[in-house]
């Protein structure tokens, strides 16, 4: 086999920029396919925009004197949850079931590179969500008061890791359709119990304690703290950090590629 002039050299040398090229191509496809899926655009863009617009104008939620000031941080948390958990879980669940991940496994794209591409795509979509939602909030009369921007970004990144871990946990174990149902169900539960549009203070005490221990409640608290108090509460950091460590570890341990 040392005789094949038409093919590659025997030991393929690492191509400079090969890793970056692979990750860039995969990220581009992840973005393209996410934005092409109608249900994904509905979930990650339309619903947060509609919820923010509707409840800041229609005063039926106990959001206090400053509805938009309460809602905007909660909707940012919702945006993170919808992209990093629901959208990722559904897409990955079907990719696993349809053999897409298996097929990628025999290309030169490494697992770490696939993970990097998925992470990059999620972060880029979140940036787009934040830009759109911030513009909308501004139009609705929201004004920043000395926001802790770095803390906000840090909390959203931690939340992204935690939710992505939960999403991959579902996608890696359950059949695709079950993942779809579970992710959407969890989305609805956490929307109501996560302090996103309903203040945690309005929940019964045991439920409130539970909510604060969940990543949704912690991320809402963190976003609201960063935007209204200029600081993220310590308990929110702790809860987010725990989920951000545990969920991906469990997901990695249980993920079945086929």
């Amino acid at each position, binding site marked *: 086999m040392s005789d094949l002039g038409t093919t*590659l050299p025997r030991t393929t040398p690492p191509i400079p920029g090969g890793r970056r090229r692979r990750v860039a191509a995969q990220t581009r496809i992840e973005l393209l396919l996410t934005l092409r899926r109608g249900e994904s655009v509905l979930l990650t863009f339309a619903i947060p925009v509609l919820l923010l617009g509707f409840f800041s104008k229609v005063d039926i939620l106990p959001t206090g004197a400053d509805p938009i000031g309460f809602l905007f941080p909660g909707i940012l948390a919702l945006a993170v949850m919808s992209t990093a958990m629901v959208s990722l879980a559904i897409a990955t669940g079907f990719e696993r079931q349809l053999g*897409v991940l298996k097929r990628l496994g025999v290309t030169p794209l490494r697992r770490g590179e696939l993970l990097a591409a998925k992470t990059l795509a999620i972060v880029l979509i979140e940036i787009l969500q934040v830009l759109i939602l911030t513009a909308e909030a501004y139009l609705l009369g929201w004004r920043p008061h000395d926001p802790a921007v770095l803390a906000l970004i840090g909390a959203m990144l931690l939340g992204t890791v935690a939710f992505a871990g939960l999403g991959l946990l579902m996608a890696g174990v359950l059949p695709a359709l079950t993942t779809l149902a579970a992710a959407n169900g969890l989305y609805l539960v956490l929307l109501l119990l996560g302090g996103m549009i309903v203040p945690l203070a309005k929940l019964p005490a045991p439920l409130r304690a539970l909510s604060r221990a969940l990543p949704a409640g912690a991320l809402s608290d963190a976003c609201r703290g960063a935007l209204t108090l200029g600081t993220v509460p310590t308990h929110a950091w702790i809860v987010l950090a725990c989920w951000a460590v545990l969920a991906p570890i469990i997901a990695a341990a249980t993920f079945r590629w*086929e």
Partner: protein
Amino acid sequence: MSAIEVDGLVVRYGKLTAVNRASFHADLGTVVALLGPNGAGKTSTVETLEGFRRPAAGSVRVLGLDPVADRALLAPRIGVMLQEGGVYPGIRPLEMLRLYAAFFPNPDDPEALLDRVGLTHRRTSTWRQLSGGEQQRLALALALIGRPEVAFLDEPTAGIDVSGRQLIRQIVRDLATAGVAVLLTTHDLEEAEKVADRVVIIDHGHVVVEGTPTELMTSTGSEEIRFGAPPGLDTAALGKVLTAPVDELTAGEYRVSAPPTPNNVAALTAWLAERDLPLADLRAGRQRLEDIFLALTDITGEHRAITVDDPAVDDVPGESTAGDRRRTRDRRAGQRRRRGDGPASGNGRPDRPDRGAA
């Protein structure tokens, strides 16, 4: 060293043994067909070579590398076509090819490849809008985009129409001409006969027999006559006339264990004529691959010509003598393909003897 080496491979799923001490090899520039009924262990063998599972015993090598341990080195040099799927439902053919092209160091041109598999007119459709045959064509193109040295094609023509079948066979032949080692699985005998340089028949995880289609058809067919006639003939009476055992293999399909001499054939037809019985077909000497296949595997469920679990496997007619012939021929063929190049053992490993049908 062969491009693909399978040596005493055992694959187990829990208690089930899917592949049991299978050995065969494939050289660069040849097409090897892994032929067997469903559940024979074809896919398990191929997926072990692709690195999806580890052997329970024995070893596999692709281009001298371990598919699992050397994945990073091997992935750029192999092309894979899974039995189904593997593509994003919402992606367009050219987008998928460009994505894969970006993974490989020296890829083929996506547009040219799309044209070669006859999908240019479907470039704006998404995967889920393609027909089954079109999806197969794209899957084949994805296996070739990286200009592989070794291609694994798992049932490449399953569920595809006649023109698609011919196109895929042509592409497979072209790959071999270009020096690629192709291992394909099929349960389509005609396909193995038409496209493969060598056929490895596998059943219940065992390699039952191996050789070129011509060798298989002549070596095991020389000492018998096969014919089709109404079911339920008095085989004992016929056997007395022919002085050789006669078996009804399946209903209406008979085998006379006697050489196909003109005398024997005449005696057979005379016997049928006396009883006014029709002769559906008669095959003497050269058999169709299908006969070999049916004789060596038990897919009819009605008989079992050989029992692969016991030493009788060594008693396949013509096997032991044909083995040596086969080996010599293969080596000669290999040398023809390697003409004008350096020694085959150029990478420091001793050239291993061809295992033949062992």
